[in-house]
């Protein structure tokens, strides 16, 4: 199956007062219809930088992003704007992503109003009701509310309805459930999962929470200091992580009924500053398996199974 969105060799470098910050280094991803790829990592791992680079808001420092085969870098500002509706994003803070002065109806209709090319069948309001229904908010109760009259979960569903109004091919969710309560979180996760399947969307789900990632994604890519360290089908990776970082991340997840691992399997507690990354493998300062080789050379990405790849000199095996 051809990917809907393909990002190749993406790097993002921010200029800061303390020198260049390599937020993302040589990351390649491809998103397919009806599948969700989860991007996992801790704060500062470059998750959100990748999302912005993919959307060309702004474009990456290097690397290409192709949407249905079209190189986004080759487009003019106007052409890019015309293509934007194809890639939609849902943000972490549901309330701030909705204009507090507008009604739900107008917020959801914004993509229709902003591109008045093809009026939706049945009219704007009917389309809004249809979209609100799709996210489980009956239009007659919610369409005339303002964002402050919504709970976090409801606001997030309004944001999803707005994204759907643009008729996207790609739906990016950046920590879209981390600000929500557990029960609202479950609703939004079910919704995202359902929509990707019924509407044939390609999903990119960014999260730091492995439990959430497992519930929503088909594939997972683990990021550390802006580089991909492990990729593969979510179930396989979580069942038998090969990168020591993935293993440490998994071990640290607190869960009812799951005994805490005896130690955190990490040498240093805190991740290094992305401004001064360690030489060689970025994870070596915290890795219990690190050797001299890890400090000397950057591990290459190796295919260890048909659909699994890892970048590590000492991958875990037989776990």
């Amino acid at each position, binding site marked *: 199956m051809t990917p809907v969105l393909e990002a190749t060799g993406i790097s993002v470098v921010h200029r800061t007062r303390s020198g260049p910050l390599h937020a993302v280094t040589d990351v390649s991803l491809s998103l397919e219809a009806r599948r969700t790829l989860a991007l996992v990592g801790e704060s500062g791992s470059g998750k959100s930088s990748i999302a912005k680079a993919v959307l060309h808001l702004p474009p990456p420092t290097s690397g290409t992003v192709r949407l249905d085969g079209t190189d986004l870098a080759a487009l003019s500002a106007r052409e890019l704007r015309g293509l934007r509706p194809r890639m939609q994003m849902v943000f972490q803070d549901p309330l701030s992503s909705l204009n507090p002065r507008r009604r739900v109806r107008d917020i959801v209709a914004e993509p229709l109003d902003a591109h008045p090319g093809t009026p939706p069948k049945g009219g704007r309001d009917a389309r809004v009701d249809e979209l609100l229904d799709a996210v489980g908010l009956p239009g007659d109760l919610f369409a005339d509310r303002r964002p402050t009259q919504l709970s976090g979960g409801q606001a997030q569903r309004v944001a999803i309805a707005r994204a759907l109004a643009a008729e996207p091919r790609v739906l990016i969710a950046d920590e879209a459930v981390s600000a929500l*309560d557990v029960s609202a*979180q479950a609703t939004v996760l079910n919704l995202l999962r359902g929509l990707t399947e019924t509407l044939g969307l390609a999903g990119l789900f960014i999260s730091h*929470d492995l439990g959430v990632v497992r519930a929503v994604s088909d594939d997972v890519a683990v990021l550390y200091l802006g580089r991909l360290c492990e990729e593969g089908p979510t179930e396989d990776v979580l069942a038998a992580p090969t990168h020591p970082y993935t293993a440490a991340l998994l071990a640290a997840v607190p869960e009812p*009924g799951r005994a805490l691992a005896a130690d955190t399997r990490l040498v240093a507690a805190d991740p290094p500053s992305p401004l001064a990354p360690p030489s060689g493998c970025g994870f070596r300062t915290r890795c219990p398996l690190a050797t001299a080789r890890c400090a000397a050379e950057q591990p290459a990405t190796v295919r260890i199974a048909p659909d699994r790849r890892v970048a590590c000199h000492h991958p875990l095996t037989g776990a």
Partner: protein
Amino acid sequence: MTPPHIPVLDVRSLHTHIHTAGGPLHVLHGVSLTIDAGECLGVVGESGSGKSVLARTVLGVHGRTVRVENTGRVLLHGDDLLDIDPRQRRRRLGGGITMVHQDPMTSLNPVVRVVDQVTESLTNRTRMGRRERLRVATELLAAVDVPDPERRARAYPHELSGGLRQRVGIAAALAGDPALLLADEPTTALDVTVQRTVLDLMDRHRAARGLATLLITHDIGLLYGRAERIAVMYAGRIVETGPTEAVTGRPVHPYTVALLRSVPRVTGELRRVLPTIPGSPPDLALPIAGCPFAPRCERASAVCGTAPPPRVDVGEGHSAHCHHPVGRETTSTTASVVVPKPASAATGTVVEEAAP
């Protein structure tokens, strides 16, 4: 728990009303709990359940702009904190109760060096020279595993990573040698791997100092293996409380059952559709006749809407307030005997609940 024994913190049928422009909100509704020395009580609840109000009421630090009315008792070593006037209370609290906040970036003063923030609770009571403060701060930072503590003591908060900042927050809280530590979502702003080390650190000091800890969180998983006991809060009430293993393994209250079911997990059977809790928490400005969870509860009957639920004791200090407690034959959360209501039926009631 039994009379001759005096717990560190003893909260008895605490009712708290917060007066807002829209009328009074009954945010805490008869909350009772105790914490012994060296014990960790985990309070879990969703936003608006009253868990943070509980911490603020115990500390007596509600904002100036809100008018708060409390009834009931908050006893620290047997002394009622609600009775005494604020100034005396502050003196009494001193090192008695301290707090670790959710976001160390906002709870630490950005223009004050770490050394002065860590030793603040000490210098409030005794005079200390600069060198003495640095020595004490270095010791405290070393005790919370801050690498290179002497250099870190001279740093400003923004020069530290999130994990280090939270450790500085803990060092500051431990400085006064408190009897009770309140931790309100202490690791929510931290990465999972860092969260783990910070919680381990708190556990270590709790054991070493015999510190009573009230750990407030929205994440029930975080309490497992850490808190001796759990109190589940809903709509300002403790709906279920008991030993952690019992509450997470054999929950009695349907809300606890639903909460545990809807947590996404990294282990166990893969669930493509997570069970949800339909509906919304009740509006605390309106009186609640029966059980606050009744409108969302799959076991609810007519009585739930009219009579306050009775306390059901299932032994080992494990109890819940429910008319229809989940039977003890429910041995695990996944093998719940409860038959979920059809979603369509729930939708109708729920949505009306949600309308303001």
